């Protein structure tokens, strides 16, 4: 398999090199204590707006997302799980001797905001906040540039603002956007990300007003949570079929929050039907599985639970050992301990790749 085109971002030496590679956790969910944390970076207008009107999203009510965190992740300082740097540092970074922890904000998205001006203001403030309160205070932490993705022009502006900043390693994109992520309205975002050599971090997130699947609106969280992970497959299919990688050949996409065991069968199905229907999408020059192999990386969380652990090895053989990135999903209830995320015996090389080497390569981390 060929590595992605384009050279990795310049290596930033912020820690002395060590003989033994240390862990990189590609998915740590940090959080605001309250939306008021953003006040220093919001204008009076938006502060008042949030106080009076709140956020406008196509959902019936704002759920208690923090209840999905593990019970011991509530920091003694009083905020929700993931909101206290010192606590997160002790509970995750220090405990597992993590070299780099990649932050992915659970809420708010900015991208979901139907008032697009507010969305842009929120994204700007979130990026300022994460630099001041997180990445500049602990150099092990690296953030994703939050963008108002439904307004591509404003999103590109935000990418331009932060792409050169050492606190950011990727551009965050919601899977459940208003349109499938491969559609043209999002192309300027991919162009900017590719130009700045930043991967897209595709997160299982977003409120787009659509049912989580074509089957309709489910009743139970157990369906909705699994269903949301399934939408990552649709996002991959969209990005490939629309020809995004034909246009932006150096673009890399990291799929977060959906595991990876589904990748081989999706590739087989995609290839088979592309062979039959390729006249519909003549712009595609590669087999879909080749495009996926070249442009996608997959975070492990939530870890797959095959009934026979050794089946996992064959799955990773197929996906590519250089494409799997360890991610804990801290502090979620289903978070994965690095010792248990892959319940198979790994060679030293495999361990090195999955628990650090692959992330160093795709994110250009030293």
């Amino acid at each position: 398999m060929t590595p992605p085109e384009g050279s990795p971002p310049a290596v930033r030496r912020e820690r002395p090199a060590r003989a033994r590679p240390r862990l990189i956790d590609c998915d740590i969910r940090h959080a605001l204590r309250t939306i008021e944390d953003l006040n220093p970076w919001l204008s009076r207008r938006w502060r008042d707006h949030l106080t009076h009107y709140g956020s406008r999203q196509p959902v019936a009510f704002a759920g208690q997302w923090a209840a999905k965190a593990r019970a011991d992740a509530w920091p003694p300082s009083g905020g929700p799980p993931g909101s206290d740097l010192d606590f997160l540092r002790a509970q995750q970074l220090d405990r597992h001797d993590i070299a780099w922890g990649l932050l992915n904000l659970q809420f708010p998205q900015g991208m979901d905001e139907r008032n697009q001006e507010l969305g842009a203001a929120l994204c700007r403030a979130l990026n300022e906040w994460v630099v001041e309160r997180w990445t500049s205070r602990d150099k092990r932490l690296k953030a994703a540039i939050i963008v108002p993705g439904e307004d591509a022009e404003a999103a590109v502006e935000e990418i331009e603002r932060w792409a050169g900043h050492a606190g950011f390693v990727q551009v965050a994109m919601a899977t459940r956007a208003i349109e499938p992520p491969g559609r043209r309205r999002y192309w300027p975002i991919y162009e900017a990300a590719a130009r700045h050599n930043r991967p897209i971090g595709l997160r299982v997130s977003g409120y787009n007003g659509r049912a989580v699947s074509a089957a309709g609106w489910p009743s139970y969280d157990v369906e909705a949570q699994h269903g949301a992970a399934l939408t990552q497959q649709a996002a991959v299919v969209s990005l490939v079929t629309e020809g995004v990688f034909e246009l932006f050949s150096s673009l890399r996409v990291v799929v977060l929050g959906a595991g990876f065991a589904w990748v081989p069968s999706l590739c087989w199905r995609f290839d088979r039907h592309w062979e039959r229907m390729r006249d519909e999408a003549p712009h595609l020059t590669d087999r879909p599985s080749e495009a996926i192999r070249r442009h996608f990386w997959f975070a492990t969380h939530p870890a797959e639970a095959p009934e026979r652990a050794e089946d996992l090895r064959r799955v990773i053989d197929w996906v590519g050992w250089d494409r799997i990135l360890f991610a804990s999903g801290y502090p979620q209830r289903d978070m994965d301990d690095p010792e248990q995320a892959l319940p198979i015996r790994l060679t030293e090389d495999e361990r090195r790749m999955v628990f650090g080497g692959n992330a160093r390569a795709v994110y250009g981390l030293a």
Partner: protein
Amino acid sequence: MRASTLGGIDCDVHPALPGMAALMPYLDAHWREQVNFRGIDGLDLLCFPPGVPAHGRPDWRAPAGGKPGADLAALRAHVLDGFGLDIAILNCLYGIAGLGNEPLAAALARALNDWIAAEWLDREPRLRAAIVIPTQNPDMAVAEIERRAGDKRFVQVMVLAMGDMPLGKRMLWPIWAAAERHALPLAIHAGGTARHATTGSGWPSYHLEDYVTTSLAFQAQLLSLVSEGVFAQFPGLTVVLLESGFTWLPAFLWRANATWRALRVEVPWVDRPPADIIREHVRVTLQPADAPPDPRDFSRLIDQLGSEHMLLFATDYPHWQFEGREAFPPGFPAGLRRRVLTDNPRETYPRLCTAPAEETPA
């Protein structure tokens, strides 16, 4: 070649309705007038445009044009004789589920089932069929099942994978109760009615995307049926996935088990791992096989399914899923073929084991 499928049972064959005119003899005066007055026609599902090469194998298309699958003699030659089959089950894809008008949907479902009985089943004793129901209205759907259940040539109840709501929802339970009562499996076929975007990320641009991601709708349906407790409520109910693909199943089952373990407190009636429930109650058809490029991966995958009872032979005629008579993909375990061809279908469809009634009950 032919010997490899001799005596088999094809669980997914698609007869095409030529047009509304064919149903007119089976509609009463009111609905005939409605159809004429409103010019109702063209209810073929847009999710299977007949012009798309994939939806009509070149050698299975009529030389003179027309919809593939519309001619009994051709179907007999291509499927029954071509593969040397004992039985083929007709699953007629027509847009009844997409209608907002519930009484019209019920009238068309009645007419379609009567048309299938008269024009296909009466003329070819090797054919069986699915009862098409107006899923929009559970009372009407139950009435149609009751009306047709006496005719043992109807062996399952068919709905689409993408309809108004997830199929496990309690509102639909009377339909599944009727199906269970009459030993009719619930068959879920690929396709939909555009009630919801075909992906949770919105409407894709390409038909290719719709077709590939249909497997996700099937996965959502399995999550719904299991999580709502349908199989706890109706322990005798079997669900058959038609044209769903199945190579996605192992990874799906692994994820479903993991999510259930984390969140099972929410659904206490799901009292064992979803994979166990699905292996017991769910069957899947062979085509499209969506096979891995390396045939050795295929037997590994069959092994991961964890059950020899799940796969049912199907050609998906006239859709173009394979070439010639190679309905079993390369690498398909030879020892499993006979089971998939005959044993599994007979275990899935109790009505295949009883002689069909001589006459269609009125």
